[in-house]
């Protein structure tokens, strides 16, 4: 599993903005040092990435071209079988069903996360300092919760016999919910998983969005108000244009995050009932590790990455174009 980085990619900084050393002119030797220093500083991070991401990725890629099951693993034999794992997977109806399910699952969750996150972000901007602090703390705590701990809490909340959720619903008069089995059907299981994902993802979007609103100059709202803009219009014409790049980056990251979410989906019900809540990463795990067909599992995981890339291609272009546009805009302002 890749390391999850939740930071937004650093905004491009124009070299001109870097502080220039005002000291004495550096000599020839020091210039050479200066040239190698950044690379030296990058080295530890690159080495770690190579060991913990690069190596497994390459190994996984190699496994995907092998017939590797219990026997081959125990006997230590390598059976190359070309593209067989890929052709088998791609011609498997189940794989495409899971793919479609993953795409819908990602789309629904990302939309909910972005909408709720934006609303809470805007709420943060409007709250007084004390309530804002309270809400921020709540958000950060939800975000800082370790995944498996959060999943366990949700399992308890939605437990069939002693879960708080069923108890509250029954107390509120929904008697039929007293013994409701949340992991009994596909939709209800997805509901619990989505709730958990939204809850853990909203803070990231909300805090980012709030940060973005602080960069909007108050004068712009005054000017808009003078021009007779209402709340909706000033949001549409002033706030939204400022938030757009943030929203794009947040959506971009959330798509990756939801599409590859494994522990949440797996821990809640292991892809059940009847494998109906398996998304692509879970499917790769169940087929590969669960069924001990490691080569097939590797091929599915490679295909998962390719599908994610394909989904992102369009989006990646928008983000890159947006950044370019920002750049020229900023350049224009500076000039």
């Amino acid at each position, binding site marked *: 599993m890749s390391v999850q980085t939740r930071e937004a990619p650093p905004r491009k900084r124009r070299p001109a903005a870097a502080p220039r050393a005002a000291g004495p002119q550096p000599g020839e030797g020091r210039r050479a040092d200066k040239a190698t220093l950044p690379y030296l500083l990058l080295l530890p991070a690159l080495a770690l990435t190579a060991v913990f991401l690069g190596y497994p990725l390459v190994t996984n890629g190699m496994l995907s071209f092998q017939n590797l099951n219990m*026997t081959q*693993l125990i006997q230590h034999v390598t059976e190359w079988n070309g593209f067989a794992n890929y052709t088998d997977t791609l011609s498997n109806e189940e794989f495409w069903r899971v793919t479609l399910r993953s795409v819908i699952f990602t789309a629904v969750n990302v939309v909910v996360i972005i909408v709720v996150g934006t609303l809470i972000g805007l709420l943060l901007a409007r709250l007084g300092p004390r309530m804002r602090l309270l809400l921020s703390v709540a958000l950060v705590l939800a975000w800082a919760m370790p995944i498996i701990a959060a999943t366990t809490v949700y399992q308890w909340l939605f437990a069939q016999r002693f879960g708080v959720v069923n108890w509250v619903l029954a107390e509120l008069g929904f008697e039929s919910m007293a013994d409701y089995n949340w992991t009994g059907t596909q939709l209800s299981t997805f509901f619990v998983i989505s709730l958990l994902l939204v809850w853990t993802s909203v803070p990231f979007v909300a805090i980012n969005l709030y940060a973005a609103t602080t960069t909007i100059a108050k004068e712009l709202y005054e000017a808009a108000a003078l021009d007779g803009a209402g709340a909706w219009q000033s949001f549409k014409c002033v706030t939204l244009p400022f938030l757009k790049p943030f929203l794009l980056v947040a959506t971009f990251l959330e798509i990756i995050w939801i599409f590859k979410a494994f522990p949440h989906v797996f821990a809640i019900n292991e892809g*059940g009932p009847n494998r109906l809540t398996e998304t692509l990463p879970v499917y790769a795990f169940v087929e590969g590790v669960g069924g001990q067909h490691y080569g097939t599992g590797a091929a599915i995981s490679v295909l998962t990455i390719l599908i994610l890339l394909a989904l992102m291609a369009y989006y990646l272009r928008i983000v890159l174009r947006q950044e370019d546009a920002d750049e020229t805009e900023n350049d224009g302002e500076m000039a």
Partner: protein
Amino acid sequence: MLVVNVAACGSDDDKKDGPESFKGQTLTLWAMDGSTPEQWTKDVKAAFEKKTGAKLKLEVQQWNGIQQKITTALSESDPPDVIEVGNTQTPAYAATGGLADLSDLKKGLGKDWTPSLNKSAVYDGKQYAAPWFAVNRTVIYNKKIWAEAGIKGIPKTRQEFFDALEKIEKKTDAEPIYMPGQNWYFLDGLIIGQDADLVKKKGGKWVSNLADPKVGKAMEIYKKYASYSKAPKNKDEATPQQAEVFAKGRTGAFIGLSWEAATAIEANKKLEKDIGYFTIPGETADKPEGVFLGGSNLAVAAGSEKQELAKEFLKIALSDKFEGAMAKESGVIPNKTALQSNLKGNPAAEAAAPAVENGGLTPLIPEWGAVENPPNPIKTYMTSVLNGKSHDTAAKAVEDEMNKRLAQKQ
């Protein structure tokens, strides 16, 4: 990683049998959580250490992810020496070449192993494990409800059992039996009872035999049982836990394992004095119904360098003395019929034992495991028969899926 080659080359030349030769060695045993009762473990350990001079290290394994863990362990250069392997999974491991051949043990120690229990330990004519213990289902019933219906005595044949259920239905407001639509291991027992096979060989490959009329006959019996139940037709016995339904006290009986009776008692203490057990009756009084004999075997890792010591351990742990002690302490079915006398005083185990001789398992081929992965096509078949489809139609509808799973590469 793949370059390291493990060959099981024990240097037997400079080893002599006898206590002295094993001094200083440690034998590692992997057993599943719940398999090794306390007193038995203590006594076996003492006897083993006394006889061989070696130490025994028991490492208790959790069920979660155990198959992958055993695979990995068997691939290592220093695997655990003796491993508990589920009996239905033994053929798959035997086929990988990861288990040592124990054929010589069978001749001595295993002369009287119950054939139905030993079957799973044999693959391709060779003995790859030793049967350790098994558990099987019985009828667990509520004496109070049976008394209410005026039933006297315990049914000796299937027809008598159905008559009793009929009486409960007519004379009480209780559900005669809890039988959800997908209690697949009970159906497997009925299939064994009909002497039917779930797979057959066709052109050198294993294919589904679900459409066999004998399987249809087993399913007919199942359907008759299910007709006395209000349980959902598309759920198995674990959703909801049938023991918890039974614990409410308004269910005449269910087909389950002894631990399920314990679950029911835990949920409803008052039920304890009302719970009774009897062997699932068969067609005739002299032969109980077929049952699924889930259980465990002990195997020796082919990569272990302590082959002789491992066999010494098996000779002690599976001796009549300790095998009997285990049956007594845990209430599990021992690997020899003669040792079943140790189950006296344990009503659940006493009811289970008579069915063992005619018990069986799922098809003992490495390819079978994939068939049971959810969604199990046989469960789908069961639900459609219970919903009114004919045996033929329902079987035909899932056979493609079964064949696809049976054809998975090994």
